[in-house]
């Protein structure tokens, strides 16, 4: 079992100390704000947090799980990056998870966790996250908190505006950050305008199994597509994507993509898209992509996609509209009523808020400035509900509390701004330390936010913690939003860069957590569901060892007859059926990873010994009083040796 490092529980420890010091018998004697804040984030030993929060790992490629309000880190879910600590991405059962059309890509840049929703509310079934580098979407199962599936997105480059879901998780979307030639081909970069395009991908999610399938792609102008959010309630059936670089620059974008006064929010009617696809208005284009799925036997396998249906706004009128939006917008966030769409223009001086109702009226009235590649550009004033004036510098991303307030992160002025969704006036502001990117309210992108806390997700910490050399942690800040004024309660460090997060009440999922995998239903072909099934076989230069692990021995634990250069597959089955008893496996000099095997599970790793000798293996996860005794030996003989292949399976 891995314990969080000291830094992760330190805030709670300080909170505890502060509480103990100031309120020795549980009754605060001081009302100073520090002790007040401490008591509000203090979760006593043995008590549980109120919310689960899932943070993106950014360049770590993973997802980390925290409790709120304590900010305690519970787990890092392995998603896009190999993890030698557990063997994820190295073991025979998990290697295929990282297959792509580019080969095995053992890392990614994970940005936006997104909980599945039913009727516009997080339902606690699945969590999705995008891989930004090699375009992918992963789906995690929230009963095991493990990655269940990863699908690659072809024709895309930089899967940033992803994986936001529609109201009932009909789709998870994936829009390309970088426009590229689609399909990919060898062209001069300065032919950008002729040859480059963007794609908005709609990935269907099976409502009972969660299984993803690439339904269709919409080919759109060659802009950079940044973020999105789905309509809800009255706007159900639409998805809103921000775009920038409507200048279609291909060099020095920080200058050349910031020329125009306005870029666009693309409003896409996905029900219309479905109708066009059904009417055969799409074309089937070749596209090779990997779809990696963990089967009922807990083994990941790759299915290869070979083509995708592509539609264009030109061939499907009514599919998409552009809403002019000031200055390189980042977020396009739909409020809980489904009527308002707040767009954060990174370089803008206002936060424009669009009205869905007015957008429909503008379409009806043909209030159109121009048409780009079949996409009508609606008149700004015709679709505007209001502008939040002087919000600060660099509005990025907005969530809502369900009480008629929006909260927008301001990257440049590093603050959170609270504004009214009826008057569009700024009501309050609070600094973030430092360089806030996204923010998150539990359910704050849904129809029913749990508007108690807000998390600021910060890129830079500078002087906030003890310094750790040139590389410093990123951080999250917990802000109480129940009062008129926002109040900062807690800073805590994060694993990798927290681009975005999601949270939901713990009560929705905590009782559904798996404790073990059922050994009787372990169908891994190399499982040893008991010592009688343990053993060893040789097939040419490959040796398979089926080994059981239980507190506290491996069986077999003496292996002879291995030769230098053999590929030795250790298939370890943890035959425990008790909660929180993983076993580890490691052998001297193994070149890939150790294994961490959960109760009832089988994991396999290959070892190619390079020299003769006798090499120990042992359990790397402290399991019992006799954990130090949980060990064994492998004898490796020179190639061609006559030592017979043996493994003790019954000897005491």
């Amino acid at each position, binding site marked *: 079992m891995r314990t969080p490092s000291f830094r992760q529980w330190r805030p709670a420890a300080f909170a505890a100390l502060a509480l103990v010091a100031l309120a*020795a*018998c*549980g009754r605060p004697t001081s009302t100073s704000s520090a002790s007040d804040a401490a008591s509000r984030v203090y979760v006593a030993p043995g008590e549980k947090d109120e919310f689960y929060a899932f943070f993106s790992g950014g360049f770590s490629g993973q997802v980390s799980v925290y409790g709120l309000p304590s900010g305690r880190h519970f787990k890092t879910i392995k998603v896009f990056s190999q993890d030698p600590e557990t063997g994820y991405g190295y073991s025979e059962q998990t290697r295929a998870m990282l297959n792509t059309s580019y080969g095995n890509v053992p890392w990614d840049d994970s940005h936006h966790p997104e909980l599945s929703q039913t009727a516009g509310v997080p339902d606690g079934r699945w969590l999705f996250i995008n891989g930004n580098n090699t375009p992918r979407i992963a789906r995690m199962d929230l009963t095991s908190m493990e990655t269940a599936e990863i699908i690659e997105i072809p024709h895309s480059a930089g899967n940033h505006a992803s994986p936001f879901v529609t109201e009932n998780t009909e789709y998870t979307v994936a829009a390309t950050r970088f426009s590229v030639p689609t399909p990919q081909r060898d062209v001069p970069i300065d032919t950008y305008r002729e040859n480059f395009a963007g794609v908005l991908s709609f990935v269907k999610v099976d409502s009972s199994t969660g299984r993803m399938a690439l339904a269709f792609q919409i080919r759109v102008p060659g802009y950079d597509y940044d973020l999105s959010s789905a309509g809800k309630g009255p706007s159900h059936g639409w998805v809103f994507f921000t775009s920038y670089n409507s200048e279609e620059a291909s060099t020095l974008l920080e200058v050349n993509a910031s020329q125009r006064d306005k870029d666009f929010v693309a409003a896409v009617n996905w029900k219309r898209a479905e109708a066009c696809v059904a009417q055969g208005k799409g074309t089937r284009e070749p596209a090779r992509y990997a779809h990696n799925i963990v089967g009922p036997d807990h083994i990941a396998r790759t299915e290869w996609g070979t083509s995708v249906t592509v539609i264009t706004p030109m061939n499907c009128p009514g599919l998409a509209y552009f809403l002019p939006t000031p200055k390189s917008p980042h977020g396009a966030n739909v409020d809980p009523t489904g009527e308002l769409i707040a767009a954060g223009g990174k370089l803008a001086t206002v936060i424009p808020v669009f009205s869905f109702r007015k957008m429909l009226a503008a379409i009806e009235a043909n209030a159109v400035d121009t048409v780009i590649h079949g996409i009508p550009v609606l008149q700004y004033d015709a679709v505007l509900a209001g502008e939040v004036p002087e919000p600060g510098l660099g509005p990025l991303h907005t969530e809502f509390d369900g009480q008629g307030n929006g909260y927008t992160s301001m990257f440049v002025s590093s603050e959170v701004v609270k504004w009214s969704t009826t008057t569009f006036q700024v009501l309050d502001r609070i600094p973030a330390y430092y360089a806030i990117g996204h923010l998150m309210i539990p359910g704050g992108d849904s129809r029913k936010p749990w508007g108690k806390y807000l998390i600021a997700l910060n890129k830079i910490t500078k002087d906030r913690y003890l310094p750790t050399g040139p590389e410093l942690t990123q951080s999250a800040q917990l802000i109480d939003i129940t009062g008129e004024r926002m109040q900062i309660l807690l800073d805590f460090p994060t694993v990798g860069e927290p681009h975005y997060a999601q949270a939901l009440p713990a009560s929705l999922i905590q009782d559904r957590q798996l*404790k*073990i995998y059922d*050994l*009787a239903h372990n169908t891994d072909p190399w499982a040893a*569901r*008991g*010592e*009688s099934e343990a053993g060893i076989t040789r097939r040419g230069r490959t040796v398979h060892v089926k080994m*059981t692990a*239980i*507190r*506290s*021995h491996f*069986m077999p634990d003496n292996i002879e007859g291995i030769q230098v250069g053999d590929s030795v597959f250790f298939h370890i089955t943890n*035959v*425990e*059926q*008790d*909660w929180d*008893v993983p076993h580890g496996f490691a052998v001297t000099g193994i070149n890939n990873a150790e294994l961490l095997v959960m*109760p009832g599970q089988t994991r396999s790793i290959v070892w190619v010994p390079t020299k003769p000798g006798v090499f120990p293996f042992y359990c790397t996860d402290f399991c*019992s*009083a*006799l954990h130090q005794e949980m060990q064994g030996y492998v004898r490796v003989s020179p190639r061609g040796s006559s030592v017979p292949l043996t493994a003790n399976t019954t000897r*005491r």
Partner: protein
Amino acid sequence: MRATALLPTLLAALALAACGGKADAPATAAKPAADALTPFQLEHGIGPVTAPVELAALDQHEAAEGKVLFDQRCASCHKTNERYVGPPLGGVVGRRTPAYVMNMMLAPDQMVQKHPEAKKLLGTYMVQMPAQGLTTEQAREIVEYLRTLPAPPAQ
């Protein structure tokens, strides 16, 4: 089990007493026989099985189910006729009551900490028996299987 249930109350009482608050329970509620076992527990063990289990004629079907479970969940540490990690189990139903055997399977932590016989065995074998996530019904099936095993020759 009774002692476990009392523990939080005792702790709460102590905590309140330490803070000088009013205690709902007497702060000195050290019941003299808190960890003494009842005659039932001595005979049938400590755990979820709290009534004697009567054996009828051997149920072959249940015994077969029990063998499958035994091979997966028990045989990594127990053989039937010789010492392995734990004691041999041939003839155990007879040496112990069926309820005792079931409680040992279902609540080995409690048994090893509190029952004099289980404590003695821990002293001999040195390995804390892990709980193997069995249901009461599964434990009963394993008892049925264990009934089919002859006692090993005298050690």
